[in-house]
């Protein structure tokens, strides 16, 4: 009989931790509901500490948030991740 030791349990754990499951479990991705108010979170923080007119900063940030949400929405829509609307 061979005296060579079989892979140890710790080795197997390391393997499993490295590779993860051989068969990737099917995960149902969440459906995205784009916010109707893209800048709500940033607005909740109050005016940013920028040395510019607060209204200018808010307008600019709001525009960027709207475009960012639009980009994320397009990304989600292209991959069937948008929740159906009412």
């Amino acid at each position, binding site marked *: *009989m*061979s*005296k*060579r030791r*079989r892979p140890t349990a710790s080795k*197997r754990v*390391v*393997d499993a*931790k*490295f*590779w*993860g*499951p*051989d*068969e*990737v479990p*099917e*995960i149902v*991705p*969440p459906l*995205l*509901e*784009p*916010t*109707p*108010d*893209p*800048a*709500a*979170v*940033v*607005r*909740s*923080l*109050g005016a*940013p*500490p*920028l*040395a*510019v007119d607060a209204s200018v*900063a808010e307008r*600019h*940030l709001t*525009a*960027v*948030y709207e*475009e*960012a*949400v*639009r*980009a*994320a*929405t397009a*990304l*989600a829509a*292209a*991959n*069937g*991740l948008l929740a159906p609307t*009412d």
Partner: protein
Amino acid sequence: MAVPNARRRLRSAAGMQTKWSRALDRITLEAAAVAEATGYASTDERAALEASPLAWVGALRRLIFETDEALSSAARLLGEERAQVLADLSAERRALATALERLTGEVPAGTDVRRPPALEPEVELPAPPRLQASWADGRVVVWAAGRGSSPLPADELDSMLKAADAGGIDWEHHASVALPTGQRADARSAAIAQTLGWLVGVGAGQVGSRATLGASLAWMGEIAVWGAELVASGRMVPVLRGSTGTGGPRSGTARHRIRWVPALLARDRLTDLVDRMPGAVVALQTSPQPEGVCRSVLSAVVDAVSRAGADRLVTPATVPQASSRVEISEAVLSGLDGRPFSAEAEPAARLAEDLKRWAAPVTVGTKIGLTVRLDPPVDDGGWLLRVEATGVDKGPLPVEHALVVASGSKSQQVETQLRRLERLLPVLRRPSTRRGQVILDAEEAGELMFNLGSIVAAAGFEVLLPVVSRRRPSPQLRLFAEAMGGQSQVGVAQLSNVRWSVLFDDLELDAAGIAKLASEARPLVQVKGRWVRIDRADLAAAAAALAERASITQLAGAALLRHAVGLEGNALGGAVRVEGHGWAVDLVQGATTHPPEPLQAPSGFEGHLRHYQAEAAGWLGFLDRARLGGCLAMDMGLGKTPTLLAHLLATRGDGPALIVCPPAVLSNWAREAARFTPGLSVALHHGPRRADAEGLVRLSASHDVVLTTYATAVRDIDALARIDWRRLAIDEAQAIKNHTSDTAQALRRVPAQSRLALTGTPVENGLGDLWAILDFTNPGLVGGRTSFIEHLSRNGEGRAGTEEGALRALNGLLVFRRTKTEPEIAAELPDKVDKLDSCGMTAEQVGLYQAVVDRLLAEDLDQDSTKRKGQVLAAITALKQICDHPAAYLGDHDAGAALDGRSGKLTRLDEIVDDVFAAGERVLIFTHFARWGEKLARYLSARTGTDVGCYHGGLSRTVRDDLVAEFQHGKGPGALVLSIKAGGSGLNLTAARHVVLYDRWWNPAVEDQARDRAWRIGQTSTVLSHRLVCPGTVDERVEEIVAGKREVAGMVLPARSSLGDLDAAQLRAALGLAVDEIIEEESPPADSEEEAA
């Protein structure tokens, strides 16, 4: 087996006295120990073991260890022997362990010997190479390998990426990835921004296949989806990063850039992803920190998506190098797309710190949470909005209380979060007795429930609001009727007291309720347990509708019915819901909520009523009881005739019924009555020898049913009007669609307790047709033509939608509509329905026919039987042509003459084509005569406005193929005329649902073949076949011959030679006109469409 092996070892060792004796002793001892453990030890072996108990135990321990090793090796075996080897070794191991336990009480650790072999260590088969992803220096690194299998070389990796829809990414060479086995996998890398779409696709399960995606790549896909979700929710904030870091003021200039970081991360989701992160993700990290890597990947995704959005904006230029705080602030706003900019390090670092602190409430995790609650008003009070804090105590606390009882830092966090909330819900800043608690009016509450709630939730607060419905409730007028007491009159004239209200779904509002709601800025009401906003325009319309009807407190039954089916119109549109009690209410509810029971086939009915026919007959009984008329509007081929006959049989004895129909179906009615209801006595009132007025009275008194044609009815209208008919039914009721026509006007004079109209196409040209039919069946009930059309026109989009909408509104009450396309009806229909249509002869046809017969008999018929037969057959052909149409016989002599009005068959064909086209379907028309077919096609083209082709043998193959293709692929109504010789076989014309056999052929097989052009594989609908025949002519003789042959010999041709042997008298009998049987074709109605307008 282990035991024989041990024995062999024992035997081979016996007697050996060599330098290996010590070793042999050990082998001998182990063999003896195995033999003893498995019950096969000899006396000597047992004695030897007992003499050395310590050695025995030692041997057992060694054996158990070795067996465990062997089991591990065997578990990796493949093939059939694996199970057997595992079973043997496990049995040996169990035996050894039992022996050891017996000797020492010791239970060996390790392999569970009690487990059955099937549960022994599983074979760890190598996993095939899959696409894996690692994270390194902000880039996605991909490679292909699997546990226990060799990694794929670069070219195969590229192929795999291509197959996984990642071929379009500009992958760069990357240093190979070290695997746990020491092997190295070739790798490619790309910036996260480039891989974003693909990674989200992986996370969404939209790209690649699960068989090719490794766990590490799938994990990264999940992160990408989460990142997109965060940005779509606006959950990200900009922070300023410099090449000198954010560690504090430095001197000089440095490159800086905005980086977008995730906000309001869900801790549970992060923990879950960290726990599930495969090590392969961090294969390139020197000191991997799973949570750090997880946050890093997520931040990179959020940054990339946010920058992509910001990049779409045009931003103002800034100074090349920002020095002051103002310049740096401007550079920050201009650089939200992530473009780096140069800035003085010290002020930039200060601004970076300030931005970090500003964003901290949403970037730094906290256990403090705020909950927003809204309670509906009680007793006309306001809506109570209150804020609670969680994470301060065991349960939620009112936020004001939490601010007091929380410790210093927690109190500060509550304050910070509350300020955030107040910025989103400024109403919370309103002066109030308690902070975080205010009373809202309906408008504010509606705004919170319908708009702000989701925004506040997206900003990281828990929001508990009353359930709302975003669906706009449609207002509907409700009419509650109570029949007036002491009224003896029941029916359309019965008066009822009525009360009006408006329903918004299940919420009933009277005028006062509407006025109260209308006074509110944003009216909120609770409908079916959900709060809904009522549109102010709807409220105004409802108020107007009620105001209009404020003075209508009594209505007659007829008016109630009109309201119920939407014929009275109202500003809210649609029908009025009629409730209460009384004749009209019972009627409406009987037609809608409690439809009449289907009629069981009455005693004496020979046949089976399909379920929809039984329902239709039940509805006819309902009309009878209500003393109403109605329109039986089942599609062609659904059996209107047997349905009415079943009803007439079920009500037999309560008075005579008059059925008026086109001449072509008169015989069919008689045949169907004889077939389905032989117990009904049926009289035909038609032809020159029909009864006079007195005779008609006697006829009606002695028969259950009198059948007549439209033209005869008009001629004998005075006589018919003298009789009290229990029922008057008009078949093919589109004949009266022109309500001003003589026919329509005359038939209205016929007195009948109930009038029925039968038609498959109740709306041929518009809703005016339907009005004409319903106004005939229930004079005056449906109101005027104009208002009827106006009110019912609102029931659908487009003409077809309007018509079907109108029929739906009236269905079950004044109309019984069923179509072949309804699945439950289609399932019950036979594959094909054959109908025989008896057609009339015009005076021109009769004259020509008689002339041909006379000429044949006047000629000296050849004595030679063959020639004589030729003469007879030529005459038969001429007669058949005349039956088709005089133009078919006259040929060029008739060139230029109009076709309509000269042939009973053509008139019938027109009716069929009208019905088919009205249903948007397609029809094949077969004729024996190709030239006549061409004329017919031209005629139909002109009449229908649709190009109708003629398929015959004189056309080239290409033209014929084109005709077939056009017909098969055409949409909507269509027709194709075919020569029965050329088109009767081999073609596939399943686009047609209708077949007309315009003239008869000797061989029934030829007719069947023709019909089967439409009924064959690929046909999904019932095929309705019409055979047109002129009774009393050679046309019918053919039918007789055909019918006879069909019963006798199926496909055998008649013995035509016998015709040549007939003498003149016999020929006259065979070919001549049977005057009594001819259906005299009635003159076309004098009235035109214009008159109806």
